[in-house]
């Protein structure tokens, strides 16, 4: 049934650090690479080398400009994939039971052999986490790499979602958000992790860590009285204001011409 479970034993999910993400899109590529050849139908592309390419992706990275009331604007790279919501509206609208939320770990999955491709679950998702594959006619979504995280054929270090494993900036964290002692839960409480569109009532499991203000270092350098010391600044001082040696001679010689 597409009724949501009363509660799940665990809440596996991602914590995405918007302060650290550099917007390299490596998570997008590794996600597509893993998921196009593992769980379910491949993630097809249409006209991939032509004039109007498009394709199915389970993870996409937006970029936003945030302009504070004062100071420089900030550029925030914003990866977005399925948030594995506790009150997943995509699951209850499914007429066939193809969409379901797992009791054991809270992962939201699609049983592709039951999916009729009506698209209603994608309508119900406020985050754009579900995409109907144009070649297969079935709904594709993030599986939290369910075929990696429990996969005993992989070395233990690889038993995380492909996007987390590949992130060169360490901006993506995977774990059990129902356990308050887990690394991801501690990150959320220490950094003030937030839900996207909380007013939609979906109760997302994935959390986002907001970016910290970017202009602090420049201000501290300008105002050493704040107490925070830029340890590298002394080493970056100019060694000499006036040129010396050969350059100094050249400089003086050119002045005289």
């Amino acid at each position, binding site marked *: 049934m597409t009724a949501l479970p009363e509660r799940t034993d665990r809440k596996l999910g991602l914590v995405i650090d918007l302060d650290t993400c550099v917007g390299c899109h490596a998570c997008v590529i590794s996600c597509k690479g893993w998921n196009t050849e593992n769980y379910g139908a491949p993630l097809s592309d249409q006209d991939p080398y032509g004039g109007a390419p498009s394709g199915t992706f389970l993870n996409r990275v937006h*970029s936003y400009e945030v302009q504070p009331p004062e100071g420089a604007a900030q550029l925030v790279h914003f990866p*977005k994939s399925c948030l594995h919501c506790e009150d997943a509206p995509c699951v209850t609208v499914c*007429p066939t039971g193809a969409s379901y939320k797992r009791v054991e770990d809270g992962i939201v999955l699609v049983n592709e052999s039951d999916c009729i491709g009506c698209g209603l679950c994608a309508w119900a998702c406020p985050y754009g986490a579900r995409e109907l594959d144009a070649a297969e006619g079935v709904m594709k979504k993030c599986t939290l790499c369910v075929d990696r995280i429990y996969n005993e054929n992989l070395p233990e270090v690889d038993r995380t979602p492909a996007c987390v494993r590949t992130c060169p900036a360490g901006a993506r964290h995977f774990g059990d958000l129902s356990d308050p002692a887990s690394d991801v839960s501690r990150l959320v409480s220490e950094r003030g992790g937030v839900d996207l569109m909380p007013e939609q009532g979906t109760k997302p499991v994935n959390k986002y860590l907001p970016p910290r203000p970017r202009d602090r270092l420049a201000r501290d350098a300008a105002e050493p009285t704040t107490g925070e010391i830029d340890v590298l600044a002394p080493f970056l001082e100019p060694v000499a204001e006036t040129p010396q040696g050969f350059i100094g001679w050249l400089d003086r010689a050119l002045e005289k011409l």
Partner: protein
Amino acid sequence: MHPAPSVIVFTSFSGLGFGLLFWLGIGLPAVTGWTAFAFFTIAYLFAVGGLVSSTFHLGHPERALKAFTQWRTSWLSREGWAAVASLIVMAAYGAGLVFVQSRWPVLGYVGAALCLLTVFTTSMIYAQMKTIPRWNSVLTPLNYLSISLGGGALLAGQITWAIWLLLAAGVLQIAAWLRGDRALTDSGTDLASATRLGTIGKVRAFEPPHTGTNYLLKEFVHVVGRKHALKLRVIAITLMSALPVLLLLLPFTHIAAAAAVVSHLAGVLTARWLFFAEAEHVVGLYYGAHAGKAA
């Protein structure tokens, strides 16, 4: 939202078909024999034709029967059951009228109730969508039910009922438009809540995740044609309600009645096109859409 022709045709025609079946079910007009056969044929062509058209947009129509399994949670599944139940009950009722010239009123009333339930379940597929604030309102079922009942009365030749119900449908349609224009702003969902970056400052979509288009943009961020929305609204309300009511107020002729039906159908198709084309899905916010609407 992308105004898919299959869904516009489905909601318009099946709404009219089930509307006509409702009136036949309560015995207005109390027809039997070949006259009943003609009425039921029109009703079934509209209702079943609409339902069949709705399967055209499925990725796997051959698995459509699986959609009957999840009636406990899914309005789409409930719609399937309601549609099949009303078509079966009304077929039995209609067989009585056509072949043995006898009216079984209880069967008719049950069938009529099921027909209304079918239209209601259709409207709830859309009204339940919190992601589309314009639809997420009690006005959506009222809009669908009033058009179905008004159009049904028109097809059933119930002139007095048709005049009042078409006027009501017009008023409800205008109410749905006016409420809908404020719905996204009133929902409180905007780019700031979508990204939660609003606490830092004003958020602007700087660069999309991909240079081309994708399923989300094609399905949910339809903008073509919205610029003509006001003109289309006037056309829709004129053809759907005003013109048919005027034609019905004239002395009855079959040509005027046929013109009223054609005009109403064209109006409903226009209104349904707008229903989809004007609907703003909140996922568009991530792509910087609806910026003019978000406060």
